[in-house]
C-alpha cells in the first residue's frame, strides 16, 4: 500500500477473535435491553452478542442482518456513542459501554467472508417494483422486497451503487472498497437489477415508472447543498465538501488531489469533520473548521470532534463567515472576530433534498405517512429525502418498513 493509501486505511481495525469473545462476554444480556430500543433498526443487540460469545457467528450475523441488511456499513459508520452504546447499562454505570459497533462488525464481516447471505428468497410473486436510488434506503427496500419474492429494478443517477456509502463517507470509515462489496453481498439475494446513470427528472420519469411497475420506492437522498449566502461564496478555490469527499473516494490516486497548504472547512456536521480530517491526511498543513455556534450545537458528535482534533484539525467556534475575498492568490474569510486565510475553502453547511415535481413535500422533503406512503398512490419514500435524522441506519430502517408497506399494498 502506498503511503497515502495507508493514511486512509481502516480508522478502527477489526477486533481479533479473542478480543471479540472477551468483549462479548462483558455484555450483561439485559432484560428488555435499552440498546435494542436505542437502535433505529431494532437489532437484538444482546442476542447477537451472545452468538459471538458462544461461537455462533452465523446466528449472530443473521440476527443483525434480518433487521438491518446494511449491518456491515452501520457497524462502521453508526454514531453508536449517541445510540446503542449510550443506552448501554455500562454507560449508566459510568464505565466503558460494550463496543457494540465493533462486535457487529465481527459478525457481519464473518458473514460476508462466507461469500453468501443467510437468507433465501421466497418464490417469485410476479410483482415488479421500481426503486429509485441505490443508497442505503433504496437497497434496504430492494433487498426486503426481493426476499419476499418480488422483482426489483433499481435506478441510480451515479455510475456506482451505494449512495453516500460509496460517495459521501470518509474513506477510512469504508476502507477496502467495503461499500461496493456490501452492495454485491446485498444483491446476491437475487431478483435485484440495478441501472446506473438514470436520474429522476432527466433520464427517468416518475409517471412512466408508476405505469410500468406495481409500486415505486423513492430513496433519492439529499443531492443539493445549502448556500452560505455571503459575498464571495462562488470565488475560485471554494468547493462543496461533499464534492471533495466524493472525488477523493473515487480517485484512482489520491495524491493527485491538491488542496494547497491551508484549508478552511465551514460547517459543523460529520461532513465537515470528514472533509477536514481527510484534508489533513492528504497533506494540508493547516486545516481549520469554522463553525458559527458553540461545540454543544455541533451536529458532529463529541467523538467525531475528538477524531478530527486527533488528526490535527483546529476547530473555531462562534466563527460565522461574513464574506470571502481573494487576496494574493489565496482566499480570506472574514468573520465578526478573526479573519482566516486559506488556499482552499470547503463548504459543509448542509445538504438538502433537491425537490421533485408532482409529489407533496413538507418542509422541503417528501411528505410520507407512518408507513412511508407519499401523496401518490403506490409511491413510497424513505431515507434522507423524507423527514428524520440523516443517518445511514435510519435510511435502512425506512427502506425496510417501506418494503413491508409495499408488500401489503400489493395485497400480500
Amino acid at each position, binding site marked *: 500500500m502506498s503511503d497515502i493509501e495507508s493514511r486512509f486505511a481502516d480508522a478502527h481495525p477489526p477486533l481479533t477473535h479473542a478480543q471479540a*469473545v*472477551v468483549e*462479548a*462476554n462483558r455484555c*450483561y*444480556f*439485559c*432484560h*428488555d*435491553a*435499552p440498546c435494542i430500543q436505542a437502535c433505529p433498526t431494532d437489532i437484538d443487540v444482546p442476542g447477537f452478542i451472545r452468538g459471538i*460469545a458462544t461461537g455462533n457467528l452465523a446466528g449472530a450475523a443473521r440476527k443483525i442482518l434480518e433487521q438491518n441488511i446494511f449491518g456491515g456499513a452501520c457497524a462502521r459508520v453508526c454514531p453508536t456513542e449517541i445510540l446503542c452504546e449510550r443506552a448501554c*447499562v*455500562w454507560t*449508566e*454505570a459510568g464505565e466503558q459501554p460494550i463496543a457494540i459497533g465493533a462486535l457487529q462488525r465481527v459478525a457481519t464481516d464473518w458473514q460476508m467472508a462466507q461469500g453468501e447471505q443467510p437468507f433465501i428468497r421466497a418464490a417469485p410473486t410476479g410483482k415488479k417494483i421500481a426503486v429509485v436510488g441505490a443508497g442505503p434506503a433504496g437497497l434496504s427496500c430492494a433487498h426486503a422486497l426481493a426476499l419476499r419474492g418480488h422483482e426489483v429494478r433499481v435506478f441510480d443517477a451515479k455510475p456506482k451503487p451505494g449512495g453516500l456509502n460509496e460517495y459521501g463517507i470518509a474513506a477510512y470509515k469504508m476502507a477496502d472498497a467495503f461499500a461496493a462489496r456490501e452492495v454485491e453481498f446485498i444483491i446476491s439475494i437475487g431478483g435485484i437489477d440495478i441501472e446506473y446513470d438514470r436520474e429522476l427528472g432527466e433520464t427517468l420519469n416518475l409517471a412512466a415508472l408508476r405505469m410500468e411497475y406495481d409500486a415505486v420506492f423513492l430513496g433519492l437522498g439529499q443531492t443539493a447543498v445549502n448556500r452560505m449566502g455571503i459575498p464571495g461564496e462562488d470565488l475560485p478555490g471554494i468547493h462543496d465538501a461533499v464534492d471533495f469527499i466524493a472525488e477523493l473516494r473515487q480517485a484512482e490516486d489520491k495524491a493527485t488531489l491538491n488542496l494547497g497548504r491551508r484549508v478552511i472547512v465551514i460547517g459543523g456536521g460529520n461532513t465537515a469533520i470528514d472533509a477536514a480530517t481527510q484534508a489533513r491526511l492528504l497533506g494540508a498543513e493547516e486545516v481549520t473548521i469554522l463553525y458559527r455556534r458553540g461545540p454543544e450545537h455541533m451536529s458532529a458528535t463529541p467523538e467525531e470532534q475528538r477524531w478530527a482534533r486527533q488528526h490535527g484539525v483546529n476547530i473555531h467556534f462562534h466563527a460565522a463567515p461574513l464574506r470571502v475575498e481573494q487576496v494574493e492568490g489565496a482566499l480570506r474569510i472574514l468573520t465578526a472576530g478573526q479573519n482566516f486565510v486559506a488556499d482552499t475553502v470547503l463548504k459543509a453547511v448542509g445538504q438538502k433534498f433537491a425537490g421533485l415535481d408532482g409529489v407533496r413535500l413538507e418542509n422541503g422533503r417528501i411528505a410520507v405517512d407512518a408507513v412511508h406512503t407519499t401523496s401518490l398512490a403506490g409511491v413510497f419514500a424513505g431515507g434522507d429525502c423524507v423527514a428524520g435524522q440523516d443517518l445511514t441506519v435510519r435510511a435502512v430502517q425506512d427502506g425496510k418498513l417501506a418494503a413491508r408497506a409495499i408488500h401489503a399494498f400489493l395485497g400480500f
Partner: protein
Amino acid sequence: MADLTTIFAGIRSPNPFWLASAPPTDKAYNVERAFRAGWGGVVWKTLGEDPPIVNVSSRYGAVSYGGTRIAGLNNIELITDRPLDLNLQEITQVKRSWPDRAMVVSLMVPCTEESWKSILARVEQTGADGVELNFGCPHGMSERGMGAAVGQVPEYVEMVTRWCKQHSRMPVIVKLTPNVTDIVKAAAAAKAGGADAVSLINTITSITGVNLDTMSPEPMVDGKGTHGGYCGPAVKPIALRMVGEIARDATTRGLPISGIGGISTWRDAAEFIALGATNVQVCTAAMHHGFKIVDDMISGLSNWMDAKGYASLPDFQGKAIQNFVHWDDLNLNYKTIARIDQDLCIKCGLCYAACEDTSHQSIAALRVEGRRRYEIIDAECVGCNLCAHVCPVEYCITMVPVESGQPHLTWKDHPNNPSSANFAG
C-alpha cells in the same frame, strides 16, 4: 505483621503456601526458582520405581469460561518420568541449600510392603522433611493398581499408611482422592493407619470437553482422549466441602489437613485454613501465572490477618468448622429479603429475568417517567439470594435479615417433620 510460620505434621515452613506435587515441583531447577520466589515448601512430584513411566505428548485440557482462561484444568500426565536416582540426588541438594523450606516427597509404588519399605529408606537419606503418599492420581497409575486404586479402598489406605509409619521415622501425609462417595472413610482409614496428616483433594476424574471436529475427548492424543484429573478454580467448592467434612467429623477431628483444590489467592487459602486446614498446596494458579503469585498470597494473607487482629495462623485456623453444620441444624425461622439500592442500580434487569423466569416472581419491572425501575415485592421474596448473585453491580442488591418474630427452629424440631418430637401429623 502477622506471623505466617506454619508447623504442619511436625514440618516447619515460613509460610503456609506449598507447591503441590505436580509438574512445578518436578526437578531442582523449578523448585529452586519457587523457593527464590518465596514458596514455603514443596511436595516433590511423585517418585516411583524405576524404570520411569513414559508420558504422552498433549497432557492438559482446560476449561475457559466467559473468556476467562483456565477456570478448570485437567491433566493426563503421570508421576515423574525421570530416573529415581536423579530425583533423589536433586532433592538432597535442594534441601541442603534451602533448610528453612519444607521438602516433602510424594511417593507412589506398587502395593507391596517391600516396595514401600525400599523407597522410604532411600527418601529418608535425602534429608527430606516428610513423605506424601499419592493415593489420589485418577489416571494412568490407577489402572496399574496404584494411586486412586488404593485411595478408593479404605482398607488399602490404612494398610499402606501403616507400612510407611513402620518403615520410616518421617512424617507421613496421606493424599486423598475426591473420587469417592465418602471422603471421611478414607481419612479415617489414614488416621487408623497412623498417618500424621492428610492432604486433599487430589484431582477429579474428568473429560474437559469433546472436540466437535475430530469427535475426540480432550485433551486429545492422536485422535483419542482419556479421562484426566481436574483441578483449578472450578474445583475449590468441592475441595472446601471435603476438607470441612474431615475437620468436623468425630472420627477424624484433629487430624492435620493440608488443603488443596483451586487455591489461587490468599483469600482462598484463608478460607481453607478457617475450615480446618493447617496449610495449603497450590498448583494450577502457579501453572497459570508462574511462581511470583506467592508474593501477593503472602502479603495478602498477612495484611488480612493484621486487619482482623490475628497474630498467627492458629488464631483463626478452624474457626469456621463449628459453623459448618448439617442442613437440619439450620434455623428455618431465619428470614432475609433482597434490597435493591436504586442509586447503584444500572437497570440491566438481570435480577428481574432471573426471578421472574426461574424463581419466585418477586421483582417488579416498572417504568417510572419512562425510566426502568426494578423493585422487590417483599411479600413474595423468599430470600434465595439469586438476584444478588446475578446482579453485576457490587453492593447493589443486598440480602437484609428481617425480624420474623419466630424462635430459632430447626427441621429436627419442626412440626412437619415426621421424626420430630413436635410432629403435628
